[in-house]
């Protein structure tokens, strides 16, 4: 399509249908079948007003919204295309309109990426069959849902894809997506045009469009509302003339596609046509800041950006144990910790022999992006795991890595192109790591050429000249730095290095690592991979940002040292109290220090049974006596958790078994999303030393049953908050009993009672978390 001229889009469909008699709240899309003439008549009015692109009346024509209508999404979509086609002239383009599904995506909601993808794919297939000219994805708030729609459109058609999202005046969508994140992600995915629609009037939306222009060189789309509706009359407060006058500014901002959303009518489009007649869209060449992002936060690649390396099992027995046991919370805690230490990007590596790397990658990427707002680097040598990670990642990621081997380049680079990821290229090939700087630079050149040939941009290639251990190959540190300088200067690409490796085998590792990092940053390294929890190394990064001028006014540096100036407080002296006291007061660090001391003289099991559990029991008794209230009980449990973590580490270090007191399965039943009560129970049980398998919320009965049998648990705990979901709890219990599950079942939740729990077949009713722990003790010991 030629984007050098303006495309006039249409105005609101819903507003017009209501004027034609559609009752408020009835699904407008069903009219494609029941009132096709009325829909076509509206399209025809827009064509007469000057619309060149018609959006089909299929905004909500998805299987979820239509589930109660008795008609299929495919039939409504096909009819929608027909209605628009019937109104068009030879020049009219018919755009299959795809709106949000109407459910919140994971992790906040219950809609999975995969389900969203299938729902959109059905619409795309139908629209393509019916002869749509392009696909418009609009009114999106969630970048994950938008990605699902874009991928469905790309994988089920070859039609052009236009995408508009809905933002509030503050520059974020309802779920927190920022303008740069939207631009980077969608430009990366290779859509044809992006922009905004709905939510705001033209003046406010055009301000956002100016921000969008800074982050992309794609043609821009703007389809504002006619202002805001009056709650009493439903009338919008921006007139057709005001609307059109405001929109005159749009082409100069790079808008190519102009139309109207809620409240606009053919009069608005007619006025718009007159207002922009003779205008041409400003050229976008040279725009588009590059960077990586997650949905809520973008990181431009124009300075030193720290990639945190801690999510990686290599050489970390405790991390390996967490991966084997599916203890995702432990991995998420590593992500949070690195974010707090100042990482800009997180590397995710979950490769461990014997485990399904693709499935783990998907799970960990989802969990990490739910917990932190940082872009991700998908780290694997398995293309299937890389693709699983890229698909799950709701932003623009980096792939770590390719190398100079042709078959690797051929398999991985197309994935980077498809998902719009940047890529790390390691300076090695089938012959190993070249010993000379020239040899490494030659491989870098090959990788860059292959990346460019696959459609990646130079700015999206990140070369790793490879850090070798200086104690083993002392001359190689200089070669790495020399290669780095060459690559930076001659190829003009970004560079990365896993710097920690330099100091392996030496005492005072931090000193060597920090010195090497400083030299490497001086040689042009901009994306160091390191452990951000290491103070000296992050201090070096902070200092280098001052010296390079990136930290303007030394502000960040001053803040860093003002905040942590008093180092004395960081010393971990054993506090002068007992574990019982530190747990009672909810003091985690103190409990950890006391536990560490106790582990010097006692076995792990004794520490658990003689110190930590009795401490928790004492807290529980005071809670029962109403001397403590809920947050205090939880704080105490958390403090004990700090002690348990040390015990687990101690066992993992010597490769020993578990001190678990038994396995408990927890789930909030199908249909219910209120899981805070279940989460409290999890924390408390965890800290009593039980292994808790938490299936989450909205969990179908069959998932509970299969997990209970597979994990051979002795106790299942179910929660439900709503009267409407207690039925689903009863079904889950029945399914467990029928399956041959022989353990016990406890239930809890606001609307349950002792007698009702018995009536639906539960063995125990847990009034609160403390009662849950008492039941666990009774059942499992």
């Amino acid at each position, binding site marked *: 399509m030629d984007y050098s001229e303006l495309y006039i889009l249409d105005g609101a469909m819903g507003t017009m249908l209501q004027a034609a008699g559609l009752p408020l709240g009835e699904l407008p899309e069903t009219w494609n079948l029941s009132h096709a003439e009325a829909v076509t008549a509206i399209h025809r009015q827009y064509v007469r007003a000057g619309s060149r692109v018609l959006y089909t009346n299929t905004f909500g024509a998805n299987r979820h919204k239509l589930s109660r209508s008795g008609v299929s999404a495919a039939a409504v979509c096909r009819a929608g295309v027909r209605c628009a086609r019937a109104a068009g002239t030879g020049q009219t383009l018919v755009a299959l309109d795809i709106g949000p599904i109407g459910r919140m995506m994971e992790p906040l909601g219950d809609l999975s990426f995969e389900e969203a993808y299938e729902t959109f794919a059905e619409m795309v297939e139908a629209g393509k069959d019916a002869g749509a000219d392009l696909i418009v994805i609009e009114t999106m708030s969630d970048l994950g849902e938008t990605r699902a729609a874009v991928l469905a459109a790309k994988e089920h058609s070859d039609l052009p894809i236009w995408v508009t999202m809905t933002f509030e005046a503050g520059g974020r969508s309802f779920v927190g997506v920022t303008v740069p994140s939207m631009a980077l992600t969608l430009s990366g995915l290779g859509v044809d045009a992006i922009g905004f629609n709905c939510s705001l009037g033209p003046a406010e939306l055009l301000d956002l469009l100016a921000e969008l222009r800074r982050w992309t060189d794609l043609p821009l789309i703007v389809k504002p509302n006619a202002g805001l509706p009056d709650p009493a009359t439903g009338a919008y407060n921006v007139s057709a003339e005001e609307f059109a006058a405001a929109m005159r500014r749009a082409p100069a901002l790079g808008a190519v596609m102009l139309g109207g959303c809620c409240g606009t009518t053919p009069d608005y489009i007619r006025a718009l046509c007159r207002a922009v007649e003779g205008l041409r869209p400003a050229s976008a060449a040279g725009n588009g800041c590059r960077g990586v992002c997650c949905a809520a936060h973008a990181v431009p690649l124009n300075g030193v950006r720290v990639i945190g390396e801690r999510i990686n099992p290599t050489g970390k027995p405790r991390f390996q144990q967490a991966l084997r046991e599916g203890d995702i919370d432990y991995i998420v805690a590593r992500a949070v910790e690195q974010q707090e230490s100042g990482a800009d990007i997180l590397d995710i590596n979950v490769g461990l022999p014997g485990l399904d790397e693709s499935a783990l990658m998907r799970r960990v990427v989802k969990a990490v992006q739910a917990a932190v707002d940082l872009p991700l680097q998908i780290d694997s040598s398995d293309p299937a795991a890389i693709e699983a990670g890229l698909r799950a990642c709701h932003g623009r990621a980096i792939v770590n890595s390719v190398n100079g081997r042709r078959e690797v380049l051929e398999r991985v680079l197309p994935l980077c192109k498809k998902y719009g990821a940047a890529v790390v290229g390691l300076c090695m090939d089938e012959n190993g790591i070249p010993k000379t700087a020239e040899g490494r630079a030659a491989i870098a050149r090959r990788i860059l050429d292959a990346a460019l040939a696959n459609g990646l941009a130079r700015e999206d290639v990140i070369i790793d000249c490879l850090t070798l251990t200086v104690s083993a190959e002392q001359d190689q540190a200089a070669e790495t730095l020399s290669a780095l300088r060459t690559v930076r200067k001659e190829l003009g690409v970004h560079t990365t290095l896993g710097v920690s490796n330099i100091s392996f085998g030496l005492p005072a590792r931090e000193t060597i690592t920090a010195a090497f990092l400083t030299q490497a940053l001086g040689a042009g390294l901009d994306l160091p991979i390191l452990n951000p929890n290491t103070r000296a190394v992050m201090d070096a990064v902070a200092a280098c940002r001052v010296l390079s001028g990136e930290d303007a006014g030394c502000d960040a540096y001053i803040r860093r040292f003002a905040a942590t100036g008093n180092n004395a407080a960081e010393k971990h002296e054993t506090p002068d109290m007992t574990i019982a006291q530190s747990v009672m007061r909810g003091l985690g660090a103190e409990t950890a220090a006391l536990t560490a001391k106790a582990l010097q003289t006692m076995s792990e099991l004794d520490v658990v049974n003689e110190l930590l559990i009795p401490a928790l029991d004492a807290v529980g008794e005071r809670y029962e006596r109403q001397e403590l209230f809920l*947050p205090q009980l939880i704080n105490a449990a958390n403090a004990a958790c700090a002690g348990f973590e040390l015990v687990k580490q101690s066992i993992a270090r010597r490769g020993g078994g578990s001190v678990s007191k038994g396995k408990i399965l927890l789930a909030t039943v199908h249909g219910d999303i209120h899981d805070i009560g279940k989460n409290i129970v999890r924390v408390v049980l965890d800290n009593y030393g039980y292994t808790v398998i938490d299936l989450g919320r909205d969990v179908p009965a069959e998932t509970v049953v299969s997990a209970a049998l597979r994990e051979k648990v002795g106790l299942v705990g179910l929660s439900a908050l709503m009267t409407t979901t207690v039925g689903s709890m009863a079904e889950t219990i029945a399914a467990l009993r029928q399956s041959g599950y022989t353990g016990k079942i406890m239930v809890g939740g606001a609307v349950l009672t002792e007698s009702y729990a018995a009536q639906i077949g539960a063995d125990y009713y847990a009034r609160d978390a403390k009662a849950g722990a008492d039941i666990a003790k009774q059942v499992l010991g």
Partner: protein
Amino acid sequence: MEARLSHIDRGEVLRYLGYRGERVGAAAEEDLARCEALLMQTARPRLVWKLFEHSADYSLNGCAYRPGGEDIRLLLRDSAHVVLLAATLGTEVEQLIRRTAAKSMADAVILDAAGSAAIENVCDNFCADLERELAPCYLTERFSPGYGDMPLSDQRPFFDALSVSRRIGVTLTESCLMIPQKSVTALIGVSDKPQPRRGRGCASCPRADDCVFRKGGKSCGLF
């Protein structure tokens, strides 16, 4: 009318936390104050409302949604107009509570309780503003799908009638629960006669049988 969050009621937060008269203590007071402040700072309250004429056959003008059940008919008996309201603290609060839960469940529980108190405050402020805007008039109590005999499934047509998802970003799960969770939908009758406050009392509470407050001779104050 703007969504306004002006205040979080400490007593209400404590009630949501299942507070039964324990000594709260300085450390816990501090936690409560810190979490309430964090919640006030994070919340981005939003609301959408629409005024409908209410006919004798209980239909709302121009609207496919017809509120179901005897309770709402009783409530709206004297009301010639009905306001549909949807309000939320936004996904910002939902995210805050979920992320805090990963670090400190104690804080998450307090934030959850503070969020419940906060969304009530937003609704109270709206009703005060509405009463001023439509004066002279008397508002009924707020009534939500899922209360009394109004089925929770009424949420769906209610949502469609106000375009709740599009206007303020609240969505429904398949079982008609709202996400973000700190959200409220309500019908409010607008009458020219004073409207009774119907204290629904413990009898209408599903936990009346084993209520920890009632056992202690107290009431949670919510019903």
